């Protein structure tokens, strides 16, 4: 039952995801400085910011955190980044490809 409710909530959160422009979102990810802590591919930076892509957290949680971060991240209010821009950034994050498994990269196996 708990599992069913969790799936229901998660589905509801993702259902609220607006369609964004991934190409524009990529530009915004640079110009809004997201990449400074999270890396240009949103892969995360050691000691600065976690990996965001691919498969970002649900859009509702994403916007909530950006506006009112609970950790070290500086807040991005609507005066700085519009809701539409956030949608585009989210689309960029969602469009990022999954990297090859580490086990298939010889340099990461010794």
């Amino acid at each position, binding site marked *: 039952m708990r599992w069913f409710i969790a799936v229901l909530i998660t589905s509801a959160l993702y259902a609220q995801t607006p369609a964004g422009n991934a190409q524009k979102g990529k530009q915004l990810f640079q*110009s*809004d*400085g997201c*990449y*400074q*802590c999270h*890396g*240009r*591919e949103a*892969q*995360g*930076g*050691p*000691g*600065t910011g976690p*990996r965001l892509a691919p498969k970002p957290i649900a859009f509702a949680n994403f916007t909530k955190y950006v506006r009112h971060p609970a*950790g*070290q991240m*500086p*807040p*991005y*209010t609507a*005066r*700085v980044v519009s809701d539409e821009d956030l949608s585009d950034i989210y689309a960029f994050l969602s469009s990022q490809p999954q*990297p*090859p*498994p*580490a086990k298939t*990269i010889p*340099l*990461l*196996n*010794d």
Partner: protein
Amino acid sequence: MAKSSKPAVNRRNFLKSAAGGTAALAAATNQANAQDTGRARPAAAVAAKEADPPSTLEVLTVDRTGSDFMVDIIKHLGFEYVCANPGSSFRALHESLINYGGNANPEFITCCHEESSIAMAHGYAKVEGKPLLVMAHGTVGLQHASMAIYNAYCDRAPVYIIVGNSIDAAARRPGVEWDHSVQDAAVLVRDFVKWDDLPISLPHFAESAVRAYKIAMTPPMMPVLLVADSDLQERAVPSNAALHLPKLSQTAPPQGDVTAVAEAARSLVAAENPVLVTDRAARTAAGLKLLVELAETLQAPVINQAGRMNFPSRHPLNLTDNSRALLGNADVILGLELTDFWGTVNNFRDQQERSSRSILKPGVKLISITAVDLFSKSNYQDLQRYPEVDLAITGDAEATLPSLIEACKKLLTADRKRTLEDRGKKLGAAHQEALERARTEAAYGWDASPISTSRVAAELWAKVKDKDWSLVSGGAWTQRLWNFDKYSQYIGGSGGAGVGYGAPAALGAALANKKHGRLSVNIQNDGDLMYAPGVLWTAAHHQIPLLSVMHNNRAYHQEVMHIQRMANRHQRGVTRAGIGTTILDPNIDYAAIARGMGVHGEGPITDPKDLGPAIGRALDVVSRGAPALVDVVTQPR
């Protein structure tokens, strides 16, 4: 007044009179003037002086000077190298070192900036376990050197500094020598050196030189400074001088109180979830082995904050990547030479309203072992926030470990050992999971350009892993991906976070590694190199093998993030955060800079596929005993 009724006899002239008779007094004034290299004087006046017939009583040469004796002391202390940018306030000592001393033990290393001299000494000390000598002007040289001295002070590293100064105002050459003289040279850095002195005689110099060495090498180790008066350097050693070389008796490192150590052992052995946290705990290779023994005895996880090479990165009990969860679940935490115990166990938020909260569960017992409790100063605030520990053991961690290990072993019953072994197996599995997680994370952005820092670390590791390597600066990903298992493989960071440490400290460490035949590897930040890039010339001139791979993110990236934080907090957007924080337009060609200094230079590398071959070519150069630099345009972090 008495002052005006006496002839102007300074110390230099007094000694000359003793050697050459009273008639030499007037002539000595002429000699001092003739040596004037300061401000320009009319050519006619110079010509007239040079035409004066020399006095038969004038003292123009000397056979054995104070500076020669200073070299005897310097050799007695066993310095291998002296790093310096030349300066007239120590000209006699410089000359004595290269001629009387034969430019060997110590060998003169020509530096292009005093900050580089000190940082080289800093890096050298962390590899070799002892200081090298730095010489500098007591004024402008020490001013240049001061930031690097602060780094070494914060990093508890021994650096031995001699600065020149001209104390006797009546003997100074007009002009520059006045600009380069000071009443109290050491006051500039007294807040962040462990000890300093101004010897006024050669016996005084001898005692203070040996005392300074002893103080620098007693944990907590720190920089020390001696002022070498130019008069003391340049005047003749009196024929009747009773000079000797005082015995150097180094202090045995202080050990923690036996009763307190026993209490710590009881807590650690009884704990269900003990955690060992290390920062500058291992001073030597023996320290690393002792930390392994303690961890294995307790089957306790180790969080390595990496101020030194404390613990093997792939030891099953190394759980640095799991630190937050481990600390939050711990019932006993042992901090070994931690820089910031409070910051280790609290979460601090840098938002408009700064806040903090403990990450610990109630009832956890905190134990610290540190020699830093034996030494305190007030002005500079590297002491960090006050840690509310339950048991503070004052003593050097490495020196205290044998008694702590013995006390723990005595308390372990067979049943307890079996329980701890079960715990160790679970921790080993968690370690393996953390390593796999690190490798998975490293794959994200693998083919990106600019090149990911994880890719840089992995490409470099593939090329060095089968050699006797030593990472002498930089690289967050290396701690997660590389297999560190020897003490010589890592030297920690700057200590005081003063930018400009990386390049010269790496070179100083490489200088120490040279005689051991170790490959020194430096992951070099771009902003750091631009503080004093002349260090590349020093590397080429002295043929110090060092592989530098640039982490060139074209910014003072930490500051980019700080300005972004402020801009967001003020709701003005971050689009202008690069003003004053980035190093763009023009992009700096570090490979060209390296080549201009006589160092093999490649790059900028922007395609990750080109990185491995470039590192390979650079390694070929380094294997022939020369420095090489590969410029890599990277992701921010």
